[in-house]
């Protein structure tokens, strides 16, 4: 029982690292990035390519994943989403184009990785890192799990603190409420949007590398599956809310673990989709979402 709980929280931490950046970008600058899953996978894949040549230690791998994720995410923003927003002044139309553009871009890293790996799962067996199992009373904990838990705590806590307390965080939240008024008040929307995308990509990169260490290997298609789970977590918690993302990721992971351990495991994918559906029906703004107030 306690063992299942720890495994569920580890899984939830990975979901959180992945979903947090997506939720942040969607809730503030209004970009639902469908290429997020591909960025996540490709950061991990880049580390794999490097580690084939040089035996790198784990902290350096995480750092590389972080940088690659941030760079890819900023590239997507500059090359695709900014031109789409410039060409579509109507926000609803832009929303749809961004969605489709993201889907198109997501296919490129996926195809490259599939081509280079011949669709065989890849892992970091050549890294200098050794998995160690720690026994704490009735439960076992690997050092990978410890790193994942610490990373989720520090990074999610950091983002949450920054949004709440830093001046730039306040400006970013202001964009989420009303982008135009925020612009009039002197908020540099472009720079903040780029920064948000960089943070989102960096979180995804870290999540990708950690997931690969945790599972031993991942496939090029892992990004798509994570994308859909992240939706469930984001929608469950409420878009743009850090606390919501934490709650959504943990509830999803606990529910999935419960389904896997209690049933034959065939229904596990239904959990995330069922949650999306149920939450949207009962509480369309999520558990922690704020009600939109419109004044005219």
């Amino acid at each position, binding site marked *: 029982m306690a063992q299942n709980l720890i495994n569920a929280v580890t899984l939830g931490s990975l979901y959180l690292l992945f979903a947090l950046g997506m939720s942040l970008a969607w809730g503030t600058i209004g970009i*639902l990035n469908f290429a997020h899953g591909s960025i996540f996978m490709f950061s991990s894949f880049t580390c794999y390519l490097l580690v084939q040549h040089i035996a790198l230690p784990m902290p350096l791998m995480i750092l590389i994943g972080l940088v690659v994720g941030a760079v890819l995410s900023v590239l997507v923003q500059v*090359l*695709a989403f900014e*031109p*789409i927003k410039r*060409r*579509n002044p109507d926000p*609803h*139309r832009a*929303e*749809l*184009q961004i*969605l*489709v*553009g993201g*889907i*198109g*871009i*997501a*296919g*490129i890293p*996926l*195809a*490259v990785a*599939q*081509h280079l790996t011949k669709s065989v799962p890849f892992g970091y067996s050549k890294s200098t890192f050794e998995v160690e199992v720690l026994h704490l009373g009735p439960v076992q904990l690997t050092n990978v799990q410890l790193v994942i838990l610490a990373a989720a705590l520090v990074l999610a806590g950091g983002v949450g603190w920054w949004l709440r307390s830093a001046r730039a965080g306040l400006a970013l939240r202001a964009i989420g409420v009303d982008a135009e008024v925020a612009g009039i008040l002197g908020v540099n929307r472009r720079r903040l949007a780029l920064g948000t995308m960089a943070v989102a990509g960096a979180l995804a990169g870290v999540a990708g590398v950690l997931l690969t260490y945790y599972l031993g290997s991942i496939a090029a298609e892992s990004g*798509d599956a994570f994308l*859909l789970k992240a*939706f*469930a977590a984001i*929608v469950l918690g409420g878009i743009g809310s850090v606390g919501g993302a934490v709650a959504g990721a943990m509830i999803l992971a606990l529910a999935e673990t419960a389904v896997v351990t209690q049933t034959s495991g*065939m*229904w596990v*994918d*239904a959990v*995330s*989709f*069922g949650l*999306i*559906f149920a939450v*949207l*029906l009962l509480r*369309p703004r999520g558990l922690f979402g704020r009600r939109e107030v419109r004044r005219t």
Partner: protein
Amino acid sequence: MTDWFDANIVLIQSTFVSLLLALSIQVPLRAGVFSFAGIGSYGVGAYTAAIVTINYEWPAFAAIAAGVVIAAAIGYLLALLLSRLGGLYLGMATIAYSLIFSVFVINGGELTGGAQGLFGAISDLTTGGVIGVTVVVVVLLALSERGRIGRRIAAVREDPELAMSTGVPVLAIRQLSFVVSGALGACAGAMNTLLRSTVSPDEIGFQLVVLALTMIIVGGSRSWLGAFIGAVIFTWLPSVLEFVGDWQTVVYGVLVALAAIFVPGGLLGVLQQGYRRWRRRALPIGGTA
């Protein structure tokens, strides 16, 4: 001509099935409803047709009709359930509905054949039948793009409040778009199953959502002609792109991304713009058409 037809029969059939699938996403989109329920309906139609053909040996058109009726009914229920949602939220909810369907059929036991799916749904559906059904559908949809009804649908999409205040039945049109989307998706799924005689849960995944959406976006999202252009391109592109070999999927992704960024009206929009420019140049200033 007949040689070419026989050699490419599978691709020709797929073109029409893809067209129906693309239309099942496009119809709600034209009414301003961002719904992917058509993909779930594709699954409903595919499995219904397979089950009644294998177990009860229904003729092809009865099997297709059974799938269409069930999916249209589910579409109406979804319209009632999801009426509060809008924009991306509705999109997400309908993606969830579509993907949960494949989990259900994997766990459906004997009825749905589990993860392997169903085999041996042999029927008398011909290519002519597929083309006939598609032509009827396209003619009906083309009529809905013109005149009074066309303007009403455009009003519901562009400004629902204004449409409502001028007496356009916004809610009814939106609900109808769910029902039509369900029927079209099921029709595509049922025909595909009967042509290939098999169906498996892998077919109804996120990839199908992506494919349907890219066909409309690259072709054009406002008219059936756009969906047709998209269906032709994405059915035939893989065989055209054979010369790039293994990098085919990379080229495919680049094309979709470029189309989404730089050609928001789709290829149909580009063609229409070009045609208008050409006509303006061909006529003297102030001349009549």
